[in-house]
């Protein structure tokens, strides 16, 4: 066993690492199916966004209580990784608590910090489970989350509680074993949370204690590796992608829409034919009908969405009962991406499946309801932009399918012929100045 355990551990680690790497590469490839049309300059300001939005969670603090609770889970997640490092080294070398000899009396302080955090994480996970399932919070009870997304959210909270409990059980049995001076269990000093388990555990026979300690150790690390591999299938991918999402989030005023240089040039050449190059290639599509027509930032954002629904809770369309929900726009884009990724995986290249993001995943009615108010972008803790995707799809509707409500067609022809959205004569534009 002494010899075999590290080998099994290494095999597990390698398998988990390999699977994660494979899935991560696939996601990266899928994201890069998007167009690369934007220049991302000003790295200084961008890193500041990462600090403020991703690390600092600035926008979460619009609701300080929830932000604080989320921060505990988030800090716990990051800091507990240091302890996982020790567990990893232990696993690979077959040693037990490899940091202990180096840290001496500081070691118990070190573990106590993790235990306090782990306790905090457990408590917050319980609170979040109650919030999601017992208290009625509109954005969490919404139909957007029906089915898998709701299960996903609960599953991860339960898994975190289980992982933290295993951590406590592992430390508790360890202390019980230390008390009876079992071999291999060097004295560490008492741990603040798990020591509470010791009186009960001490009544168990030595073999059982060792069995529990080892099982908890293995299950804990297997759980962590499983969690790692679960991430890419879950909304919890935001733990990783929130950072690039913050980096690439827009620096310009939110009201500025993305220009379409191809259309700009076409209009320019029509107005001033002398400027037209003889070999001007016509753009093939306008706006986005499917994920291939969006840019990679839009696609990365779909994978970064935490499905928290703050966007939809702020959206004037959603809150007045329209079909549009900006969260659903992000989720639909991700669902379509996953479908395309599967398709490419199975067929080596994309085989037309007679489906598109527009129509099959996002309906015309949804797109028509957006007021471009930017409330969704403002509300999103990761500063994702459902609006960007909505606008690209709207462009496709109008310019590719000529699909507009009759009133809009009238508006268009008024603008074109009378230079105003209403049917007034351009001659009368300055009449207000004369009637004093």
């Amino acid at each position, binding site marked *: 066993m002494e010899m075999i355990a590290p080998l099994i551990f290494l095999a597990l680690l390698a398998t988990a690492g390999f699977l994660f790497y494979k899935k991560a590469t696939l996601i990266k490839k899928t994201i890069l199916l998007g167009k690369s049309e934007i220049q991302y300059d000003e790295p200084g300001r961008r890193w500041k966004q990462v600090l403020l939005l991703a690390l600092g969670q600035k926008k979460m603090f619009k609701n300080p209580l929830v932000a604080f609770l989320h921060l505990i889970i988030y800090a716990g997640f990051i800091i507990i990784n240091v302890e996982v490092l020790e567990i990893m080294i232990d696993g690979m070398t077959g040693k037990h608590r490899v940091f202990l000899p180096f840290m001496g009396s500081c070691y118990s302080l070190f573990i106590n910090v993790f235990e306090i955090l782990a306790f905090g994480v457990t408590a917050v996970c319980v609170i979040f489970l109650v919030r999601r399932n017992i208290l009625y919070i509109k954005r969490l009870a919404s139909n957007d989350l029906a089915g898998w997304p709701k299960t996903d959210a609960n599953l991860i909270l339960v898994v975190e509680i289980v992982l933290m409990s295993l951590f406590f059980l592992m430390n508790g049995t360890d202390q019980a074993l230390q008390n009876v001076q079992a071999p291999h269990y060097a004295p560490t000093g008492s741990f603040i949370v798990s020591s509470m388990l010791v009186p009960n555990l001490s009544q168990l026979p030595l073999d059982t204690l060792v069995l529990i300690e080892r099982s908890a150790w293995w299950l804990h690390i297997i759980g962590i590796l499983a969690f790692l591999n679960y991430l890419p299938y879950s909304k919890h991918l935001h733990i990783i992608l929130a950072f690039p999402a913050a980096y690439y989030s827009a620096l310009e005023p*939110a009201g500025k829409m993305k220009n379409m240089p191809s259309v700009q040039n076409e209009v320019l050449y029509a107005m001033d034919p002398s400027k037209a190059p003889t070999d001007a290639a016509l753009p093939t599509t306008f706006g986005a009908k499917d994920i291939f027509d969006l840019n990679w930032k839009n696609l990365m954002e779909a994978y970064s969405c935490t499905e928290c629904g703050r966007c939809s809770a702020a959206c004037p369309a959603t809150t007045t*009962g329209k079909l549009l929900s900006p969260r659903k726009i992000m989720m639909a884009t991700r669902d379509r991406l996953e479908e395309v990724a599967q398709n490419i995986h199975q067929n080596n290249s994309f085989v037309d499946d007679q489906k598109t993001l527009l129509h099959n995943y996002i309906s015309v009615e949804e797109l028509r309801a957006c007021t471009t108010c930017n409330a969704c972008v403002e509300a999103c803790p990761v500063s994702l932009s459902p609006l960007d995707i909505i606008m690209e799809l709207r462009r496709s509707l109008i*310019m590719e399918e000529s699909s507009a409500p009759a009133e809009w067609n009238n508006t268009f022809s008024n603008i074109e012929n009378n230079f105003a959205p*209403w049917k007034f004569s351009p001659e009368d*534009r*300055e009449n207000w100045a004369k009637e*004093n």
Partner: protein
Amino acid sequence: MKVNTMAEMMASGTMPEYLFWVGCAGSFDQRAQKITKAFSLILDKVGISYAILGKEEACTGDPARRAGNEFLFQMMAYQNIQVMNAYGVKKIITTCPHCFNTIKNEYPELGGNYEVIHHTMLLQSLINEGKIVLKEGGAFKGKKISYHDSCYLGRANNIYEAPRKVLEILDAELIEMKRCRSNGLCCGAGGAQMFKEEEAGTTRINIERAEEAVATGAQIIASACPFCNTMMTDGIKNKEKENEMAVLDIAELIAESMA
């Protein structure tokens, strides 16, 4: 009051400091025309040199672009930029947040580079410079006023303070609605919604916003956008509160209070 056009100014060999971009609502909509007139009255009183484009002004293309019609937007932008560049326009003031946003943020990469100022910003700096003098015991003194944030000023361009600062000099009681500033609720007009029927839902956006406005108990809803103004006025009517509350543009409130 005589409002000059750029063409007239050019003919007489002078150039105004500002181009006043009136916008389609400000030019044609009967309610919005009053805002336009109120603002030009202020400009006149303060002695700011400005001119309008008159017949040469055309829709900025904002509703077309946001509906998805980029071709039409680009055509309008091209035409407007040609006209303004030909006059050598440098500074633009406008009473419409949509025109403000489009000219300020979207025209530069199409060749139109101007300093663009929303009227609430200009009013704020005129107040700071002491150029706006109010009547004794102004008409709005002690009244309850609630400011409705326009999306295209607020979230789109981060302008939350200027309108509020302007309102402060009225010596009125300023009350915020439940959702204000960056959390402000849209009036429902943006994104070309103004020009079509709302999609099916449980209520209309302007009615939802009017309910929040009514809940403040304010006598005046201050707006800074002609489209918000229309939407809020309709919403308040729907709540049958039009006799208790008025929807007025900040320019109107100042024009009426000026000495």
